[in-house]
């Protein structure tokens, strides 16, 4: 099947669909788009189903050559985009014809861009998903967890949509250098942390460390003393904030391990995990508690 030839895979480009669900009991994680907001818009621009497979491009440097006539869309981080020698806009549908070269340069703000094509990338499924989880060796074009390589062909249907779309300015990502507010649903062992440690956690600013990836974001800041009680390994949900013995929080993300034995304070709201995806190491964040009713209301509103 024809589609797009990978001329340069860039720093790390991964095929991601909505993720791999229902296999946690085998120890298999979800994968899926880190910035689900930009991922969803990229698919909408191509009139795809929400779960269609896209590329998640870390930092940039990706060059593709189209073998078909179709439309594509690029969302997420601020990246310079060129089709052949022409600079084009992100957050809108673009037409490509055979021989066109799409170059995605390095991000000037944010760090993850999403590339969608009409009909979605026709990548094979393993455990119901095309999502690439490098650590598990699952997903991607060869089903073995390998990121995009030079010479790979992204198979796509030769399909076109009748209308071109553009996301209104107010819905596109806004990048600034402020401290990012991250909302967290209190949960798991939070009642075992002392009141003073909880106060400290919610008043402190944390810096994203360089040891951060799709598995987890390691933070640096004031240490939070975890409770002394011995813990058995238990299930970890998306966004869980764990406190190992050194007291430096780790936010567990899309490629997280399915079980773990460190105490946890709760879990970051998924709407804010999408924001984390665009924060480079060195950026600062602060946690705000949010109760479960409010969190679930926000989720319902976000899909309306």
């Amino acid at each position, binding site marked *: 099947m024809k589609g797009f030839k990978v001329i340069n895979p860039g720093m790390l480009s991964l095929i991601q669909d909505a993720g791999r*669900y*229902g*296999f*946690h*009991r*085998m*120890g*298999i994680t*979800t994968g899926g788009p880190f910035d689900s907001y930009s991922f969803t818009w990229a698919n909408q621009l191509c009139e795809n189903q929400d779960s269609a497979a896209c590329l998640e491009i870390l930092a940039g440097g990706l060059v593709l050559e189209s073998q078909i006539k179709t439309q594509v869309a690029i969302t997420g981080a601020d990246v310079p985009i060129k089709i052949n020698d022409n600079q084009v806009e992100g957050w809108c549908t673009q037409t490509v014809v055979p021989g066109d070269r799409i170059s995605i340069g390095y991000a000037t703000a944010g760090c993850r861009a999403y590339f969608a094509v009409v009909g979605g990338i026709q990548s094979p499924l*393993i*455990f119901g998903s095309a999502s690439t989880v490098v650590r*598990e*060796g*699952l997903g991607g074009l060869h*089903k073995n967890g390998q990121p995009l390589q030079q010479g790979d062909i992204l198979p796509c249907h030769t399909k076109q949509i009748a209308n071109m779309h553009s996301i209104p300015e107010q819905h596109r990502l806004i990048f600034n250098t402020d401290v990012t507010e991250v909302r967290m*649903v*209190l*949960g*798991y062992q939070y009642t075992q942390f002392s009141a003073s440690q909880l106060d400290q956690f919610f008043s402190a600013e944390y810096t994203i460390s360089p040891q951060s990836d799709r598995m987890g974001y390691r933070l640096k800041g004031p240490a939070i003393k975890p409770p002394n009680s011995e813990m*058995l*390994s*238990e*299930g*970890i*949900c*998306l*966004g*869980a904030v764990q406190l190992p013995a050194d007291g430096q929080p780790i936010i567990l993300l899309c490629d997280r*391990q*399915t*079980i*773990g034995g460190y105490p*946890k304070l*709760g*879990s*970051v*709201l*998924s709407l804010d995990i999408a924001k984390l995806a665009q924060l480079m190491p060195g950026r600062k964040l602060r946690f705000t508690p949010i109760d*479960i*009713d409010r*969190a*679930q209301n926000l*989720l*319902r509103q976000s*899909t309306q």
Partner: protein
Amino acid sequence: MSQNVPKITIAGENSAIVYFSERPCRKTSSIIAHTVSYLKNNLSTKLIDLVPSYHSLLVIYNPLKIDHLGIEKEILNAIGLWSLEIDTDKGRKIELPVYYSVESGPDLQRLADSAKLSVDQVISIHQQTEYNVYAMGFAPGFAYLGETDLRIAAPRLSTPRQRVPKGAVAIADRQTAIYPAQSPGGWNLIGLCPTAMFDPNQQPSTLLEVGDKVCFVAIDRQQFLQLGGSEQILAESGQ
């Protein structure tokens, strides 16, 4: 069951965690297995995933289809069926061959020395227990088996290995496991199992699941090779 359990706690915007007992035991594992099948049958698309572990079950649901109060009610319904006698012997029993040796288990001699046992005694004690699969995690198909006899319990290595070979049989504290694929790891390696633990191209993909019972049976080098083990794995295992 004490007053504090079962306890349902919020884990995140779409997740609740249920603690079934203070300590893991076979009865708890059976109750968790029953709860898993009840929730799977009754929640259909409201349910996203389930993570059973030692004494807990993480229930991940679709918050657009059921809210946290609704899921709590469903979990309580499942727990209500506890009045039924739970048969803890109902789980599958699986026998796994292990080539125990200093060649295939680079930590065997050290573990024996620090336990003041002979290598043969360690091998024999490891086979005497019928283990319970308490949890799956760390990597696809990695099963946490417990509990080992206290005499052969051993702490994790202070520096984990970069490469533990596929099939390595290992001990950490009172847990034992088989590495389903080559990976880094800090457990004490005592042998090699030629049986595949995880194969994404097979149905089912994992040999073990939570609630299964596992026994180990010693095999020799030749049997290891006949059952699918390779010289290459043996060579790697000594490193």
